[in-house]
């Protein structure tokens, strides 16, 4: 690990004020320390924001405000999250291990980086880690990587489970930074790789997430489901967060977000549009899933993700409609 200096910030503005080139913010450390030890992250200055007074979960009118430093396990265990946003609770519980969830923060979970094997190995090329060096995953091991929205420069996936649920629930991040305070909707926080895969998100240097806000839960039932070959403590092959409200056999509200398929949590907007106002039947669910997945551009070793995502969408919606 490269040497760095360490400072603990007392307030968000102090953290942002101390930001300079080479600075990284340290939350729970579960991904950043991991990447520093691998040499993937090489900060000169580490500003610890894990103890900022941003660890509260509070209801603000109809909305739920979750502080950026809330630990993942506290988020999943919170009564309001369990009762009003079950897809979010389940997504958090599906991620990592009990130990990691106790350490990881909400903001850190959103900003965790891809687990692409090439990204994590500094002795191999990777456009995300070392722009312009190439993407060996396209010809090599891409079995866990993206089938939607990828580019010739990068086929990485975003590994978070929580972000998938937040995308389905139309959450937004609140942040402060050198350019002032901003609000960014979560479908939109994470970028597609395009020709600049080194940027995971639309955040600017020095931006610090202070909170995640969830609007009032949409009507209907919600669920999060994750597929993985190891029964626990594994990243998703494909996951889904879905909300479905059916009245008299007709789809009212429908939200579908997929994980493990793209550089960002993937809101299945085509599928949602195809379903809203139509019949809640297995045929309609299948047609919607296929409409969404027409955009998929799988590689030889991740082509299984297309039928898997299709089956997962159909099966999940069927269960929610039942």
């Amino acid at each position, binding site marked *: *690990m*490269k*040497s760095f200096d360490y400072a603990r910030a007392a307030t968000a503005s102090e953290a942002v004020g101390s930001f300079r080139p080479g600075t990284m913010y340290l939350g729970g450390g579960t991904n950043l320390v991991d990447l520093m030890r691998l*040499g993937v992250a090489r900060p000169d200055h580490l500003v610890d924001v894990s103890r900022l007074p941003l660890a509260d979960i509070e209801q603000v009118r109809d909305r739920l405000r979750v502080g950026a430093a809330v630990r993942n396990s506290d988020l999943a265990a919170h009564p309001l999250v369990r009762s009003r946003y079950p897809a979010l609770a389940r997504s958090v519980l599906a991620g990592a291990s009990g130990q990691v969830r106790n350490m990881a923060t909400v903001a850190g979970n959103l900003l965790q980086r891809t*687990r692409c*094997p*090439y990204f*994590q*190995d500094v*002795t*191999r090329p990777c456009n995300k880690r070392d722009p312009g060096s190439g993407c*060996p995953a396209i*010809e*090599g*091991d891409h*079995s866990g990587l993206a089938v939607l929205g990828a580019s010739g420069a990068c086929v990485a996936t975003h590994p978070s489970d929580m972000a998938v649920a937040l995308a389905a629930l139309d959450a937004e991040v609140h942040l402060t930074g050198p350019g002032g305070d901003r609000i960014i909707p979560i479908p939109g926080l994470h970028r597609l790789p395009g020709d600049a895969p080194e940027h995971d998100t639309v955040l600017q240097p020095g931006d610090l997430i202070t909170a995640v806000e969830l609007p009032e839960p949409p009507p209907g039932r919600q669920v999060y489901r994750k*597929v*993985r*070959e*190891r*029964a*626990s*403590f*594994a*990243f998703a*092959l494909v996951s889904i967060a879905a909300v479905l409200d059916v009245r008299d056999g007709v789809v009212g509200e429908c939200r579908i977000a997929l994980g493990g398929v793209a550089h960002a949590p993937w809101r299945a907007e085509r599928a949602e549009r195809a379903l809203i106002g139509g019949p809640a039947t*297995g045929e309609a*669910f*299948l047609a919607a899933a296929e409409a969404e997945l027409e955009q998929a551009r799988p590689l030889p*070793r991740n082509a*299984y993700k297309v*039928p*898997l995502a*299709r*089956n*997962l969408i*159909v*099966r999940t919606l*069927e269960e929610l409609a039942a």
Partner: protein
Amino acid sequence: MNRIEGRVKVTGLATYAAEYPVAGMTYCFPVQSAIARGRIVRVDATRALAMPGVLAVLSCEEPPKLAEDADGELALFQSREVCYRGQLVAAVVADSLDNARAAADAVSVEYEPAVHDVTLSADHPGLYRPEVVNPNLPTDTGKGDVEAGLAEAAYTVDVTYTTPVLHNNPMEPHASVALWDDEGRLLIYDTAQGASWARNAIAAILGMPAEQVRVVSRHVGGGFGSKGTPRPQAVLAALAARAVGRPVKIVLTRQQMFDVTGYRTPTIQRLRLGADADGRLTALEHVAYEQSSRLVAFAEQTAAPSRVMYAAPALRTAHRLVRLDVATPSWMRAPGECPGMYALESAMDELAYAAGIDPVELRVRNEPETEPDSGLPFSSRNLVACLREGARRFGWETRDPAPGVRREGEWLIGTGVAASTYPARRMASKAVVTVQGDDFLVKVAATDIGTGARTVLTRIAASTLGVVPDRVHVELGDSDLPDAPVAGGSMGTASWGSAIVRACEELKSNGKEGRADTAEEIAADARLARHAFGAQFAEVRVNAFTGEIRVPRLLGVFAAGHILDDTLARSQFIGGMTMGLGMALMEETLTDAEFGGFLRRDLAQYHVPACADVPLVEAVWLEEEDAGLNPMGSKGIGEIGIVGTAAAIGNAVYHATGHRVRDLPITPPKILVPRFQPL
């Protein structure tokens, strides 16, 4: 009785290799090759040497003096040739781990790369017939006419199975602490499965008399074969400690372990079986293709179990090896039997379906009178009894053999069976027993890698002496103790225990002391086919929509001679079966064709089973009396548990889905064929 070292293990006081408190400790961190083949032009340590705390950089620029016939994996920095990506090419010693690791990043190695080849295939032009296969078995065997046997068969199976690169991944990383004293003696705290062997090998490579070297391995955090022979870190620690004149600690990172501590070779196995109308084999051919590095020719005995299992008038086994620009494979739990029985027992299941015969019954019908290949009588063989008892306990008689017809909600359900086998060997060992006050002290350079060796050896000594175990104290894990073979090959207990029994018998006769060396006794052992056998049954659930596979139930029934300690034996069996579950469903290291080396070199990417994967694993055994083994009447049990598990699970997946996956691991992508349309 509970494990003797239980209390120190649960209180965190058990001392593993890297944990001895040593004053003035320094830390070594290796630098690994970034190419798979080529030459090192230059190692530039200038920048590293200028970094804080750095004491030395070792590399081929100043090759340390080592024995000329050193094992290629241990001949550190002797050559500028690079033989695989990840090979150790330099090392930094510094005053702290963080300083050593940071400086290792700063060592600049200039290479002249050459074109590499890291891909095993069954038609690789470099395939050859190795002289022998591990441990020292004939490469090829044959009797009868396989082609004629196939031609006359009513049913034939001709199938190819593959197994991937598998890594032992003991929880404790390979580690060594080396200290030189003023008289030039070397002490290494090492993660060795055998202190005597490690001492001999390290002394030889350093060109020292064995008595100048001491290896201590009081607690070893698992090995599964990967610590059976010295690994580079032990030699490197010794060299580094000599270079800086201070004690040196090396703990390999998990990632480095994938490269330099051995792995199970990938295999491609072709099985050709023929059977008559009653299911009796007319021919059995098992050909295995596998790889080794350019440094060491390690040829796994993958087809060897087919020499043992079934009666067939025509029986041929063969091994072909190719040397690639890859890391050196080595022992991993049940080398040979584990991957070989996966293929054989899967093929037997395919034959059972082809012939329309129950798979338990098919195996029973092919029970041999004598060892099929050698013709030797078995010292004991209770495979049929294991199959029958397992079938009874598992509820096999009510099984509908039709594949792909049982469903509960999203889940397809199936069951499968496979046989297990593992040789029952022993090697020469010494042991000394003395009287100490009212108690007895047993000394033997055995190793407890988690098997419970301390406990079982205590029981063996107590039982021979006719005293309560509390009065017996076993000292092991130190090469200064009487020479003993490695904890491996499922022969530790048989080897050490034989010597302890003889030493105790001598003590009983003279009242003072017993010293045993079983070399002569073992050389006089009758020629017999000595193997443990077992039958494994698996129930699986396969999700029809996602391809996820879960194993709600595993049952193993074993016949392994006299079981010396029920608790320890059960732990060994279920532990092996759990590892077999990992082999069946998740374990796989990928080889990077473009850059060489391995991908997925950590425990987030190389999945071993987690607690949630293992709801119910049961192991039982038949009491087996066998006077042809050793004084305890025991067969080794450390490895047989993993033999057959993957086949039983794979066969159950077929039974659940009607889909035969012949390439391990059986993962959702391989299940998710277009047949699984949503309802």
